[in-house]
């Protein structure tokens, strides 16, 4: 599966084509204030910038800046209604990240299976007894 890189056109919020990369999504999620905004949008379902400023306690330029990053990572989507822009959560960004990065326990399960495969089939190792119980060859 190929990954699309960030396209030049990210201003069309309704585009069906995914332009966000997994790295963008992970960077977007890696900032505590952006995670806070996602949590607020989860509770409120849809909010304007002003509502998010009030609910979060952040300043308006900061909220706008974070929302832009979240929108470019397809973690939020925007609906324009007259003078107001209404933000809501968008699952596409997370889908991108999940496709790239296997789930936490899948990674460990895979590692343990590979490790077991390595050690359980290793007939070349000399140690079947600990050194202090290994008996000397009589010569």
């Amino acid at each position: 599966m190929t990954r699309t890189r960030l396209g030049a056109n990210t201003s069309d919020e309704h585009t069906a084509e995914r332009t966000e990369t997994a790295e963008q999504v992970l960077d977007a999620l890696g900032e505590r204030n952006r995670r806070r905004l996602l949590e607020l949008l989860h509770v409120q379902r849809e909010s304007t910038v002003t509502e998010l400023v009030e609910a979060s306690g952040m300043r308006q330029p900061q909220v706008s800046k974070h929302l832009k990053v979240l929108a470019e990572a397809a973690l939020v989507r925007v609906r324009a209604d007259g003078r107001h822009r209404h933000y809501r959560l968008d699952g596409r960004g997370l889908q991108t990240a999940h496709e790239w990065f296997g789930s936490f326990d899948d990674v460990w399960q895979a590692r343990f299976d590979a490790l077991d495969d390595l050690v359980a089939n290793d007939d070349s190792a000399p140690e079947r007894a600990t050194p202090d119980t290994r008996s000397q060859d009589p010569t």
Partner: protein
Amino acid sequence: MTSPNSPADPSTLDGRRATAKIELSDDGSSYSCVRVFGAPPERVFRAFTEPDDLRVWFPAGAPEGSEMTTCESDPVIGGEYRYAMTIPGFGSMNWYGTYTGVDRPTRIDAEEWFVMGDGEPEGPPTRQTLTFEPIDAGHTLMTMQVDMPAPEDPETFMEQSASGLTSSLSTMDELVSRSADPA
């Protein structure tokens, strides 16, 4: 005598796979793993600490095309380990570790920093403990406990632990899937 085809039989691969338990704490700040391996503790200890072995199993589960470009390990108290993996389309993941306790072949303690991309490790480390206990004939019960640091610095917290990152992804996934419109 247990049937050799029993799923609980640790002498079979399926039996050992069935022993795996991986649990993430509710707050995502720690996780524990348990697994039986089909070799004695000394062999399993080596698999966790020798580069030739690590290169074989550590990349498992990473995106296809991933490659381990660096793998070094000095499993003594105060010794360090360093892994680097390049992920196609993403960049590099880097692990920097220091062994703080080594009791061969029974136990390993380490502090570890995880860095996405280039950059120096910073902030508090993840603390890990691995134990290897002989069980049955020639098998090992491994336990792994990993404690991740509190997010003092939100900008670097996500970089400090791939597991922390994935746990946050899971949390966000839950939030978003309950709210997002179907496309």
